[in-house]
């Protein structure tokens, strides 16, 4: 009986949901961890809908890099008004689709914590990739990417697919920066210890927390979550002597979106404290805009990269396909 009632209730919700479709609806394509219950999505939706008289609809894809191929697939008929979650490694290719519109904001007036000049994409957070380990399962922590790669008896690890995931792509570029043309060799040394390659960060991190592997590709900021929420130091990021590859996550609006004004409004909202305040404790990254309060304590004492590594977007755009092909070939063996 209870079950029936619930079913009926759900049906009613669905019907009222349809009836409400008259209010303006802003559709944002993003990655799945952004829209998850513990991610920024629910709070962002609530905060933005409070005074926009609109509905914010997040569509969560596997991960950030999947946004680009989805954009290319859907072309001018995309249902998205905004894509949120690409990073600088993909901006050149994304802009080349011609599907995105300039944000039209005066960057000098924006209070950004990073250097930024792009007129299409706006950054909302940034961080550094790192391998996060379970200190209860891993005794010897590699001190460099080289050590991790070359220790053939090293721990198993979980990584993401560079074709769908921005962290996955980040690692591909990280290894490219550190090993240069020897990158395929490095991958072949690493390959036997890769437990699985997931499509998105969420799956990878979930498997890691289940104890499937002691090491996972994530961010220097990931331990802050465990400290802040769980009060534990068990999960830590490994500091690598070569430096850490950086990620700046960005959003842009679509040129063909029928909701231009609302999309603009969201982009401004995205850089306001109302949005930026949520980033550190939901997306567990560093906010790119001004916040109303300092970073939580959990962010102090995180791994500070000795060097920040980043390949120019144009260069990534020129080589990404070839490098991914190379990666596929090595891991496919």
């Amino acid at each position, binding site marked *: 009986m209870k079950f029936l009632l619930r079913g009926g209730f759900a049906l009613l919700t669905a019907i009222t949901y349809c009836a409400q479709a008259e209010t303006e609806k802003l559709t944002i394509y993003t990655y799945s961890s952004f829209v998850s219950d513990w991610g920024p999505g629910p709070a962002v939706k609530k905060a933005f809908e409070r005074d926009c008289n609109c509905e914010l609809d997040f569509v969560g894809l596997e991960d950030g890099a999947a946004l680009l191929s989805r954009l290319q697939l859907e072309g001018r008929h995309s249902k998205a008004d905004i894509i949120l979650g690409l990073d600088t490694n993909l901006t050149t290719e994304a802009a080349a689709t011609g599907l995105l519109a300039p944000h039209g904001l005066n960057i000098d007036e924006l209070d950004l914590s990073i250097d930024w000049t792009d007129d299409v994409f706006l950054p909302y957070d940034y961080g550094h990739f790192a391998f996060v380990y379970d200190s209860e399962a891993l005794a010897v922590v590699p001190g460099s990417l080289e050590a991790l790669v070359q220790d053939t008896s090293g721990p198993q690890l979980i990584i993401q697919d560079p074709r769908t995931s921005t962290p996955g792509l980040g690692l591909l570029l990280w290894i490219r920066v550190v090993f240069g043309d020897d990158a395929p060799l490095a991958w072949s040394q690493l390959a036997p210890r890769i437990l699985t390659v997931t499509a998105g960060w*969420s799956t990878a991190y979930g498997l890691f927390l289940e104890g499937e592997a002691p090491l996972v590709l994530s961010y220097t900021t990931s331990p802050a979550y465990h400290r802040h929420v769980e009060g534990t130091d068990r999960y830590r990021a490994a500091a690598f002597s070569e430096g850490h590859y950086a990620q700046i996550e960005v959003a842009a609006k679509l040129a063909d979106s029928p909701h231009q004004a609302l999309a603009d409004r969201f982009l401004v909202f995205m850089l306001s404290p109302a949005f930026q305040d949520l980033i550190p404790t939901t997306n567990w990254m560093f906010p790119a805009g001004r916040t109303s309060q300092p970073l939580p304590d959990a962010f102090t004492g995180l791994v500070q990269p000795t060097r920040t590594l980043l390949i120019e977007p144009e260069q990534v755009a020129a080589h990404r396909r070839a490098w991914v092909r190379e990666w596929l070939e090595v891991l496919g063996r």
Partner: protein
Amino acid sequence: MARSPGPLTRKFYAIARISWPGVVSALFLLLLIGATFTVLLIGSGPIRLINDLGKDPYLRQVVGFTLWQASLSTLLSIGMAIPVARAFARQPSFPGRRLVLQLLGLPVVTPVIVAVLGIIAVYGQSGILRDGLQLLGLSWSGRFYGLTGILVAHVFFNFPLSVRMLLPAWDRIPSENWRLASQLGMNSRQLFRWLEWPALTSVLPGTAAVVFLLCFSSFAVVLVLGGGPSATTIEVAIYQALRFEFDPPRAAALALGQLGICTALVLGLHHWIRAQSISRGLASGARYRPDADQSIHRSFDLAVIGLTSTFVALPLAAIVYAGCTGPLSSVLLDSRLWAAAGRSVGIALAAAAVALSLAAGLLVTSRHLVFQLRRRTESDVLQIAGSITLAVPPMVTGTGLFLLLLPLGIAFDLAVLVIILVNATLVLPYMMRTVGPAFLDAGHRYDRLCRQLGMSGWYRLRLADWPIIRRPLGFAVALCATLSVGDMGVAALFDTSGAITLPVLLYHRLGAYRFDEAAVTALALIVLCAVVFLVVDRGIGRWHS
């Protein structure tokens, strides 16, 4: 005297007038497959295709792995199925035999993605089995993702199927042979060598061929359990080329490759596949055999059967348990679940209806050709047309239609329509094989009587055919709808907010690592499948004219 339009023209019109249903169905299929092929050929560019398949080492690896895993899966499934089928044949009566055999029928109709979830929960890296082994002081540290996981899942689906396909072989051994063997004092091994193996050889190739084909074009299993580029099948590579890399030519080239290999396989294995029919019947196996009652054999058989049931039941039970103890209310109150469920049922029923119409056209005309026009060849052509989609994997058709619609910008708008169409072609061979024999049998028995009495069209369908095909038809439509509800392949390709089916929703939750929600969704999907099956099967099966 003026000459009539000519006997040939008249004959042509006469044939066309009664053959149009089959011609329309066949043309539809031909057009669909032809369009797919053309789009893929143009999309990939013949030169590019040769380059890709010839030079790209990754693609060669993918093709190699696809064949390798399919061979291993077939070998394992069949290898395990023989002793288990033998155990069932040797023990024709023990309490629960029917139930266990029905349990073995479940994996085939369980949505792949659901079963995969259950398999991870039981046999996965941190599954129940591993915990159990640890309790016993054993440990196993192999990688589950990759070949191991794929093989476990493929065996889970195909080993019970093989058992059920092999079992009827024992019915073909005449009871006199058993008595004779008993007279000659044959032991268990000799019985196998001289009686059972010869009977098995008539069904083994067909069973192996079906299993190989299923594993060859496996999609969801590899997508979830593959764990990276080292374990990718062609179907998954097609999906990734489109969804991950936005590389339509590569997707087209891969789809062409898949089409080519599959067609070659089906043509090569056609002789054996054709002999396999799909039925709900279970072999009785009730024969006297000299070694059945020896206690050592009996305990061995029962142990084998027990292990088999556990292997199959555990993942299903794990899903039901996790689903019941999961966040029921929050998942069930989510309107997305209901929207996806409604969409899935709608797609499934529409796909079954399309498949039924196509099958009806082909069968009606095929029967006409055999019994009234005596054109067996043409009739066979129509029958084969109904099975042709076996050689054209749904992912290939889906890719073709996707690439056809992509430049028009309506690929995602027509997603639901395409999924219906592709699912219809996916289930058409099942439909032909379940309804076909009954329909032809009705013709065999009553064609002349009907013509004598002037029963044609609606009268004939209602009074002569319906009572005979009602049950197999109900079963076929129910089976097709259920398979379609649980299928994820093309739905994943067209994954867009307006076309998310329940399996795709489940895949999303799995991808977002929400195992508890995924379990509840999986449970909902199982219940949905069961309801669809029962309602359709009973609804049609008990509907009297």
